[in-house]
């Protein structure tokens, strides 16, 4: 293949995953946690697509597309939860949302 090999893409994906994991663990605003989660999902997607290219097999791309759909569903539910939390006057802080009772 001309240009960078699959390993280089995997390194970018690893760094992205690390950044996303850092955001999920460090940030307290649920919105930023969701955004960081998206970064992690996309890092996984990049890995799937890189390996699909390496193997010459489209199954990886199909998997990545399914991940995209699940991520969209997760964002819809996650944002719904955040809006519900804000409506009830709860603090938008993942550390303080420790009970499931509404």
């Amino acid at each position, binding site marked *: *293949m*001309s*240009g*960078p*090999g*699959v*390993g280089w*893409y*995997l*390194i*970018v994906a*690893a*760094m992205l*995953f*690390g*950044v996303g*994991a*850092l955001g999920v*663990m*460090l*940030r*307290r*605003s649920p*919105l*930023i946690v969701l*955004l*960081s989660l*998206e*970064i992690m999902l*996309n890092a996984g997607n*990049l890995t799937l*697509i890189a390996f*699909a*290219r*390496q*193997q*010459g*097999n489209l*199954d990886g*791309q*199909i998997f990545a*597309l*399914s991940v*995209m759909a*699940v991520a*969209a*569903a*997760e*964002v*819809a*539910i996650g*944002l*719904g*939860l*955040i*809006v*519900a939390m804000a409506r009830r006057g709860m603090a*938008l*802080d993942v*550390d303080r949302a420790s009970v499931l009772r509404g």
Partner: protein
Amino acid sequence: MGNFLVWVVWFVAAAACLGSGIAVVTMTNPFYSALSLIGNLASLAVLYLLLAAEFLAAAQVLVYAGAVMVMFLFVIAYLGGRADAPWAGGSPLLQTAAVLAAAAILVEIVVVLGLAWGDELNGSAEISESFGSPAEIGRLFLTDHLLAFEITSIVLLVAAIGGVVLGSTKESRAAR
């Protein structure tokens, strides 16, 4: 020459990707974080194009950078974009642990990659012209991966219903 250009495009896209990813995590204003994520997703789409995933690159821009991020920005606007500093609150012990855990994940992945580094990892299969094209993806979705396709549609339907249920209030239910 073409080879060199691919490297340049890869490098720019990867740098933009990592830079905007770090911006998402470090920005204090959630609005700027969401905008940085759009940049992140767009530069990822460029990487997908380099990996011969044309349809996925288009879907990434349309679904993610378009639809999902617009939803994010609407919610952030609705909530009033309360700023919170990345390091604000929380015990320093937990924050150190978070940084260490993230670094550990990164080191683990890089070490595993380093162990596997070589021609086997970096070689790539010969692919046909239609690899990653919408027609090919659609054909696979309706033949080999029909179950995944149907399950995806159910997941999206359930998520849509869940969003409506979570968004409804006592008043809006009483009005019906």
